């Protein structure tokens, strides 16, 4: 009995330590803010360690940005997220390619690391990700998504850029190149990328999933408020929605006020 409790203490110590490692790998908020001053990250891990991760990298006039959601949560998800951050850093070590090329390469890295060859059991491991590249010279936003979309607003009107229905990792069908979507700066006021944790959260009156529809509605509603309040509003709204329910998954949501950025560049 005493032995078991000893083991539990050891395990939680290990997990806390793992959390430290994960935090160390995630970009510091200050660094993020320095590159993208008009932005916020709502990052609510379900456990001590998280399967969601975010990533940012600046190379000359291009800024790469991603919000990813790895298979599973907790420790397995965290391992995968560490891999993801590492691979993205490796891919962008010299220059930042097009958003779809980044995802194509990331998929190759994951497939190679997990030794995936397209067999059925391979298909459970991987990640979904929304990847953007802000090109301040061309004044455009590139977006490619592996199952995760991008939402943007222009004059308070919401638009969705769909993701490809392919994960990062081996999928049921043979790999294709991810699509590259290009949106000029002046067509966007604000945009959001996120993992599925927010929309999958149970709560509300019928204790149901918020779903994407509910999530999009919240996003629409907060457009009435200044961008600086969005993080707090979104946090409060999910807390209210959750009520006494347990958080079902890691939550990650990144918002960027492009209008302010492109007015300054």
């Amino acid at each position, binding site marked *: 009995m005493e032995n078991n409790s000893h083991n539990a203490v050891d395990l939680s110590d290990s997990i806390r330590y793992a959390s430290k490692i994960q935090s160390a790998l995630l970009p510091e908020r200050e660094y993020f803010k320095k590159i993208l001053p008009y932005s916020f990250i709502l990052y609510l891990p379900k456990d001590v360690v998280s399967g969601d991760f975010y990533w940012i990298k600046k190379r000359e006039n291009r800024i790469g940005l991603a919000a990813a959601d790895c298979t599973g949560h907790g420790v397995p998800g965290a391992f995968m997220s560490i891999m993801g951050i590492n691979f993205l850093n490796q891919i962008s070590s010299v220059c930042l390619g097009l958003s779809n090329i980044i995802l194509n390469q990331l998929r*190759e*890295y994951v*497939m*190679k690391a997990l*030794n995936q060859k397209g067999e059925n059991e391979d298909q459970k491991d991987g990640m979904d990700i929304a990847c953007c590249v802000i090109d301040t010279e061309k004044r455009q936003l590139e977006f490619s998504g592996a199952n995760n979309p991008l939402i943007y607003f222009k004059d308070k009107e919401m638009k969705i850029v769909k993701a490809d229905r392919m994960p990062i990792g*081996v999928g049921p069908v043979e*790999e*294709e*190149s991810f699509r590259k979507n290009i949106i000029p700066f002046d067509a966007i006021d604000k945009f959001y990328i996120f993992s599925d944790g927010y929309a999958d959260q149970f709560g509300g009156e019928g204790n149901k999933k918020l779903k994407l529809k509910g999530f999009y509605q919240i996003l629409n509603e907060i457009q009435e408020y200044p961008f600086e309040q969005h993080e707090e509003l979104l946090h409060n709204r999910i807390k209210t929605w959750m009520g006494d329910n347990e958080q079902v998954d890691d939550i990650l949501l990144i918002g960027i006020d492009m209008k302010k950025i492109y007015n300054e560049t």
Partner: protein
Amino acid sequence: MRLEAFRIKNYRSIVDTGWVNVSPDNITTIIGQNESGKTSILEALYSFFNGKIHEDILRSDMKYPEISCAFLAEKDFLGKRIPTDRLSPHLVTSFKQRPLLYLSRIWKNSHHSYLIYGNDEILEASRENEQKELEIEELLLVKIEKLLNETSRLTEIADTAERDLRKYRSELDGLETKYNKLIRSIERASMAKREGLKHEAESCEKKINEIKKLYTLSENNFNNHNEKLSQLIIKSGYAGKYKLALENVKKSEVGLKEITNLIEKLKFEIQINPSRRRSAKVLRNLKESEERKKQIKSEVFRFREMLRYAKECIQLALQNTRPEDIEVKARENYEKKEEQLDLEELALLIFPFVPEFALFEDFSSLLPNRIDLEDMLLQNENTEGFNAVKNFLIVSGLDSSFFNEVNTRILKSKIENLNGEISLHFQDYWRQNLGRSNKIKINFELEHYDLSDPEKKGKPYLEFWIKDEKERLYPKQRSRGVRWFLSFFLELKATAQEESSRKKILLIDEPGLSLHARAQEDVLKVFEDLKSEMQIIYTTHSPHLVNTEKLHRLLAVQRADEFNDHSETLVFDPQKLSQASGDTLSPIYTLMGTRLSESNFIQERNNIIVEDTHVFYYLKNIFDIFSKNEKIYFLPSTGARNIPLLVNMMIGWKLHYAVFLCDHKESREIYDQMKELLFRGNDEECSQKVLLMKGVEGIENLFSTIDFKKHVLNKRVGITESNLEYIADNNLSKSDLASAFAMRCHNLSLKQEDFDEETRENFRKLTAMIASSVKN
């Protein structure tokens, strides 16, 4: 320093070859039919070096030859050999860009030529400068005339003013005396006369005042003009000196021309009238005239120097330089200009450093059976076979001291060793068997005359043998071919071994005419062996003297109108061989087979040589999908190293070609090699023919990873390295993969849409690059 290119004008059938590059690897082969002008090229180059021509080389228009050579010098040649401050900055800059030195020999008549530095551009600039100088001189003469006229006008005015002054002075003196007298008379005169005298005195005073005014006016006028005149007189002094110097130069030049004509006339007289008495008088006359010519020449030289100095002085004077500074500055300018080399002086300074051209028309000196040692030591050049034996001794490394050895046994032993060495060396080149299987051996021996020749009894002689195991025969008992080859071998080896500060260029006309085909190939071997030590330019008809692996060495020569022996000679370098006629190129066809373009394998145009079969598969299928309308014929080599051989064949077959290379170490080396050999280092020209896909190490890397997996590898696997690295890391066969791709293209009828954007973009660039190269 090495010969890079030549240009021949007005030499026998040659009107103007234009600049023709010789092979960068030191062996240049000139092919062409009889009477095409091959030998003329060699002779013209030799004339460039020795400055001699025969009258029979003159064309019917009687224009004298002009032969130019471009030499590639060491980068520091100009600073090291010729002080750059004595050259025009333009020359120094152009040399820095490419260290080429241009020398032209231009004939004024059959006997006289001069060397001048420069190519067309430099000579044109120099002619323009000369023209400008002439214009400046004409302008100077106009200014001088004006100056002298002005001086004479002012002198006249000043003289007149001076005369007036004198006249007024004298009038004033008279009037003043008269006035003084009148004043004194008034004092003494009676009242009645006083009034009259007063009136007269007043009138006199009035006149005095009037003349004083005139005097002052004249004085001012005189002073003014005198000041101007004193300035003009200094200038006019220099102008006069200049005119005098000019006149002296002209007169002395006329004198020089007259005396030169006289000398020519006297020489002609001596030629046509060999009568002793008459000749003695003419000879005396000729001697005196030549002495006189020397004097006049030195006068011309002195007067020209004086003229240059006078010119500096008058130019400075006209620029209103302070009179006391004129001569100092003129001296400085004169000396500075004297130091500047003109193009003829520069050519004379460079000429001693250019390689020595040696023309071998025929190796008339064949190795004799024997030669007296005395004749060799006394350098009796008329002795039969002297040259061949001399060469033999040079190649053997022997000089006269060798034969001073008194101990016959030691001497014979040394000779035996040398015989072995020479035979071995010769056998390296001469591969023909004599008899059934025996290789040729060269022997020489030191013998002494015996009693059978009482006159020479006891005197040493050298005896030569060409032997095999069965036979020991004198050279004369062997075939002419063997003797010729031996002499040729000795001559070339000896030339290469001769110690000289100058490099050599051997000009050889039709080597090996009497040799068997295989022996002719041995001649090529000798050339190959010597090419690091000298440049060789030879003419031939024989296909066996053309190295088909190195057609970049060829120059094809033919008449503009092949059926007219009086039409001018044209020279085609390797890049223009396709313009030469089939008859001219017959030695190449003989070796390479004729008209491959008539088969369906390769076409006359649009041929692309690629490194390997796998590149062939990829390109063929990529073009089928991405650029179907382009008719391109891909020709696979067996590795990048063999591409130059294929290029040679294409040149030989007169087929249009381009080479496609991916960017790796070996292909870059091949690119550089072809750039140097075929395009004389011109990267722009080379890159149009040899397409190096920069940054793409292998054609497989043009596929995106996804397309590579899908269409080439046919496997779902993570690839984080380049496709080429993946192939290497996993020991995959490039050819198997390429053939799998070809099969997939065929079986699935792949279309452009089946490739992703990255691959499509790469393939479009690739097909556009290749297609544009065949259109050039």
